[in-house]
Structures are given as structure tokens and as C-alpha cells.
């Protein structure tokens, strides 16, 4: 089960909102589709789903045109959508049946999901009576109840408190383990780093960077150095060509050109006899890569 987007293009008038975007999502993998506001993430997703027509490129599922060979889809849209006046069970069973589930199976699956997300007592309440976080859980169930092959989650964590965010994280991991192909769009880089093996960062409709997250990070090199010491290191750090030296309560963070420069610094600290409690050389975080790539547009 593989979703492939090849050279996707979409414009409104003269404005290109998606420009030559290509990506591949395999079964058992979460793909992070990232970008600032208006970068073209939602347009890309809508084009894949056939909600919008695209002008260029193609979308394939298992090598065949997506819309002629549609998998079952679990879609959590960016703008949440439920019937406010209908009960939770009524609408979730309706949505599941539209995906071909029998009423009885749908009801069984509903029970399991409501238990899993801890909202079993709200089964027969109207959606408008629920809190925002619980509505979000209902929305998540609507995307997953029919055991879809392709799961598309657009900002799934919005509105959830840390406890429920962890609960959802475990659900997402479970979906990946079940072999679903998962497209994950989020502004929260920590979650993306947690789940996604491959990412693509969009800016004004174009892919700025894409591929395996580990490879991308490696390509940036380990240039982030974190030092902790009770002594004042200012005089030792100055004049060595180190960039972005910052000091917070206990730690110094700075950028080195390469690992050799970091080792040289370590030697210098040793020779000066300064007690160092922590010396860590790190790859840049996805957050930093995102800021660098999307930076001024956000």
C-alpha cells in the first residue's frame, strides 16, 4: 500500500498554490507534511482526496490512479466538521456505514473507540454538548472507526490537553504499527519528530526540503553545542569563531562549524581547568530546520 504524489501542481488564476510537489507514503509509515500557514498543505491533501482538481501531475495508490482505485480513507480535516445537533453515536455510525460497514459492526467499533478514548459516557449526547477536546476525540473516531487503509490527519492535536495528546499519540503509533499509510500535517514539530520517518516542508507551494528526517538532520551536521558549567565561560568562548553564543540560567548554547571545532573547544576547556558538567553535540531539531526553511514567511 503506497500513496505516491508526482509533480502535483495547482493554481488559482496566476497564483501557484502547489508547485511540483512529489512525495511517497508507504504502509506502516507516517509522513510529515509541514509548512507555514498558506504553504499549500491543505490544498495538497484536498487534491489527493479529489475534493479539488489539480492542474498538473498525478496521484497514485499502489501504482494506479488514486481516484479510480481509492483505498478507504480516514480523513481528519483541518477545520473540524460534525453535525452539532446529532448524537455522537448516530453520526459516527452513519459515517462508518457510508464507508461500507454494517450497522452492527459499526456499533461494535464505536463502543471500542469510545472506551479507548475515554468518552464512552458521551455516546448518546449531542456533539454540541461536548467540550472542545471531546469533540476532537469524536472527530478522530470519525476518521478511524472504519479501519481505513490511508489515514490523513490535518492538525490532529489541536484542542487536546497534554494527557489527551499523549493518548492520541499512542493511537497514532498504533495505527502506524497496524500498517496504515499515514499522512500527518502539523505545526507541532515535536509530534512530527516523534512519528514521522519522512517529511516534506512546503513553502509557498514548493517543497523546500524532503526525505528521511534522519538523513535531513545528518546533512545539517552536529553543529549545536550545549555546555553546562558553574564557571563563567565567556572569556573562553570568545575569539574562537563560534556563532550564536547564548547563555540561559545554567547552559550555554552555541553553533560550531564542524565536530573538529567542538573537539578543539573541549581540549581548551580541559587545559583551562574549567569544570564542565555537560558537553553535548547535537543535530539541529526539526523546529530549527523548519524555521530556517520557512523562516521569514511564518
Amino acid at each position, binding site marked *: 500500500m503506497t500513496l505516491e504524489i508526482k509533480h502535483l501542481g495547482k493554481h488559482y488564476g496566476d497564483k501557484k498554490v502547489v508547485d511540483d510537489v512529489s512525495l511517497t507514503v508507504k504502509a506502516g509509515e507516517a509522513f510529515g507534511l509541514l509548512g507555514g500557514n498558506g504553504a499549500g498543505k491543505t490544498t495538497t491533501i484536498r487534491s489527493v*482526496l479529489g475534493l*479539488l*482538481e489539480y492542474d498538473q501531475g498525478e496521484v497514485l495508490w499502489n501504482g494506479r490512479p488514486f*481516484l479510480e482505485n*481509492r483505498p478507504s480513507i480516514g*480523513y481528519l480535516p483541518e477545520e473540524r466538521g460534525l453535525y452539532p445537533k446529532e448524537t455522537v453515536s448516530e453520526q459516527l455510525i452513519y459515517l462508518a456505514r*457510508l464507508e461500507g460497514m454494517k450497522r452492527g459492526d459499526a456499533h461494535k467499533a464505536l463502543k471500542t473507540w469510545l472506551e479507548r478514548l475515554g468518552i464512552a459516557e458521551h455516546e448518546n449526547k449531542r456533539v454540541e454538548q461536548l467540550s472542545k477536546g471531546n469533540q476532537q476525540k469524536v472527530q478522530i473516531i470519525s476518521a478511524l472507526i472504519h479501519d481505513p487503509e490511508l489515514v490523513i490527519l490535518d492538525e490532529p492535536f489541536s484542542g487536546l490537553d497534554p494527557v489527551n495528546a499523549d493518548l492520541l499519540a499512542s493511537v497514532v503509533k498504533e495505527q502506524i504499527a497496524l500498517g496504515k499509510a499515514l499522512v500527518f500535517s502539523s505545526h507541532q514539530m515535536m509530534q512530527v519528530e516523534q512519528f514521522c520517518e519522512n517529511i516534506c516542508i512546503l513553502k509557498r507551494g514548493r517543497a523546500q526540503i524532503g526525505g528521511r528526517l534522519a538523513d535531513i538532520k545528518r546533512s545539517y551536521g552536529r553543529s549545536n553545542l550545549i555546555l553546562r558549567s558553574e564557571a563563567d565561560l565567556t572569556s573562553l568562548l570568545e575569539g574562537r569563531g563560534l556563532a550564536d553564543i547564548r547563555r540561559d540560567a545554567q547552559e550555554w548554547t552555541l553553533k560550531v562549524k564542524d565536530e573538529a571545532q567542538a573537539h578543539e573547544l573541549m581540549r581548551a576547556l580541559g587545559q583551562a581547568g574549567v569544570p564542565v558538567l555537560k558537553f553535548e553535540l547535537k543535530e539541529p531539531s526539526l523546529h530549527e530546520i523548519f524555521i530556517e526553511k520557512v523562516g521569514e514567511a511564518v
Partner: protein
Amino acid sequence: MKTFGIVFGYSFKERIRSKSFMWMTLLLVAIVAAIVLIPRFTGGQAVTNGKVAVVNTSGLPIDAQGLKTAVSPVYDWEIVPESELAAKTQQLREEDLTAVVAIAPGTEAAPAPSIELSVNHKEDGSFAQNLNAYVDRLNVNAQVGTLGLTAQQSGTLTAQPTFEWKELNAGGKSTAETFMPVYALLMVMFFMIYLFAGNVATSVAVEKGSRIQEILITKVSPGQLLAGKVVGVGMAGMLQFGIVVAFAALLMNVGGTGEALTIGSITFDLSILGGQTLIVCAILYVLGYFFYATLFAAAGSIVSRSEELNQSMMPVSMLLMAAFFLSMIVLNDPNGTLATVGSYIPFLTPMVLLTRVGAGDPALMEIAIPIAILAVSTLIVGWLSSKIYRGGVLLYGQKPSVGTMLKMLGTSGKKVHSQAKPGTKGANGAA
């Protein structure tokens, strides 16, 4: 077809469980009860036009029953003594009476009896001519009696001319007889289409406003979604209509009279129209509903929030109202050019053709061709509406207008991607 069934079932259930459905049914039942029962509570009698007090000093044999039979059945007649004349006139001033009549004997100068009719407004004395003829006849009879003629002579003198109506119905049915039933059928059609088709628009706008549309459309093709909704809401409407009609029939049979419903002097009797008319009427109700419901659905799909619904429904409501008013106009001339031409224009057909069939005298082809045109137009409108619907679903923040609808037609159809899954493909025909 399976998804259509699921959407249909959901729309139907959603509709009949809604509060507005329950209240509307109760309201209609209450109105029907009022129409049927109020005349019964007023003594099984039709509501009258009022009371008339008659002071008769002429000596002529005038009584209330005679006045009712010979002058007017829609007034309550009361013979009062002369001494009450002033009191009755005062009552008339206070509008407790409709009219006061004083019939006095003739004088030497003017030998015929005199009639004085007092009313507050001239239209309250619409019986004046009949009254005059009645008193005149009684007077002639009385005078003839004083002449000492033989029974045969007096019989010849006082004999009434025989009078017989012959209704040939050339140029169509009697407009007077068919007016009320056709008028009622038109009213019911207008409100049914406006209510039920309007419900389709509301339902679409709610899905759009709550953004669930975006999820639905990844599961069901817009055509099936639209068709399921239109038929589901329509069936709920039929159920409501059925409940009200059954209730009305039950009430009217409780009295056991089986007579036509009479309100005032107006008799409401659908059987005047004949079975053929009612069959055509049923076809027009169904086609009219589908035609307008799909249009209303398109109107519902271009709004961003349900608050904007009235604005976007306006053009469609205007068409419906135009059809209603035109049918009212041609009800007086159901075989005229306006009626004939109007019946061929699809958005006017349901009501104007109903008027023609009910009150006029169209040939079979003049019925069949407009119906065929309406049926084909309904399919085309359904197809166009599903395109507007598909395009409108993702359109937010634009002013709902005819322009927006046209824009949706332009952008949504070029490369139609089937939303249906392989198993259900080809079943996405709109209503």
C-alpha cells in the same frame, strides 16, 4: 445505490426527529382541526354573514323561514315587533346587527308596501334585490286575493316563470365551481414545496456550515449525497402531509355526514375536479418538489454559514413565488395565452399546469408535453445543482449570489473525478 440508501435513511430520520418537523405537524393538524371543527361547533351551520332584524307592519305574511329560503340563506333573519325598531337600530349602530329592515304598508299615493333597509355599509345589504322581489311577490299575491277571482284566475296571475340553468361547459369547466379546490391545491403545493424544498436547503447549509461536508464528500459522490437528501427530506414531507390529510379525513368522517366541507358560502369539494386532475396534480407535486428541492440544495451549498441561507435562497424563492402568483392570475382565465405559454416554462409548470388542468380544458398533449419538459428540466437542474453543490462545498467566505453559483458551474465540472468507490461507481445520478 447502497450509499444512496444510507444517505436517504439518515436524511429522513434526521428530518422526522427534528423539533421543527414535530411543531410544524402539530400546527398543521391544529389548523385542519380548526377548519373542520369550528363550523360544527357553531351548530353544524356554516358561519353566517350576520343577523338581520325585520319589522313588518305591512300585514304581509313574512316570516324568518321564508326570508331564509327566498331572500338569502347566509343571514340569520329575525322578525321583531315595531316597538323594538329603535332598539334594533341602536344595535345596528353598535354593530351588533348587520341590517335592520322595516316593511310598511302602502299609502294611497304609493299603494305598494315600502321597504326601508338600514345598514352601516352598503355591501351589508347585498340581499336587497331578492328582498324587494320577495316582498313584491307577497304583495301581488295579497292583492290578487282581494279581487274575488277564481282560483284558476288568481293562479294564472301569480304563477312564477319556470327557470332552468343549462350549463354546456363550452370553453372549459365552470370557473366558479373549480376556483376554490384549485386555489386550495395551489396553496398546498406552494407551501409544501417551500417548506420541504426549503428544508433541503437548510440541511445542506447545516452540513456546509458545520464543515462535515468535507468529510462526507470523501465518502459519497455529490450526486448521491444530493439525491439521498432530496428524496429523504421529500419522503419526510410526504409523511407529514399524509398525517395531516389522514387526520382531516378522520375528523370529517367523525360527523358521519360525508358531505363536502363548507366554509361560509364556499363549498370545498375536490371531487368536482375529477380523478384525472388529481393524478396529474400528484405528478406535478412530485416533479415540482424535485425541481425546486435541487435548486434550493444548490442555493444551500454556496453559503458559508446558515445565517446567509435566506439571502442565497432568495432567487429560487422568487421563482417559486412568481409561479404561484402567475397561477393565481391565470386561474381566472385558465385557457388563455398566458396560461398556455406559462405551462411550458419548467419553473412555472407545476403550478400553472395544475391551474390549467384543474380549472381549464387542455388537450392531452398540452398536459403531456409540459410534464415531459418539466421532467427533463428536473434532471438537468439536478445535474447542474450537483455540480454547484460539489463546487460550493469547499467554498467559504464568498457572498452567496447567482454569480457564485455560475462560477461554481464553471470551475467544478471540467475534469469530473468520480468520488464513488469502484463498487458504487455509476450510481451517482442526481434526482
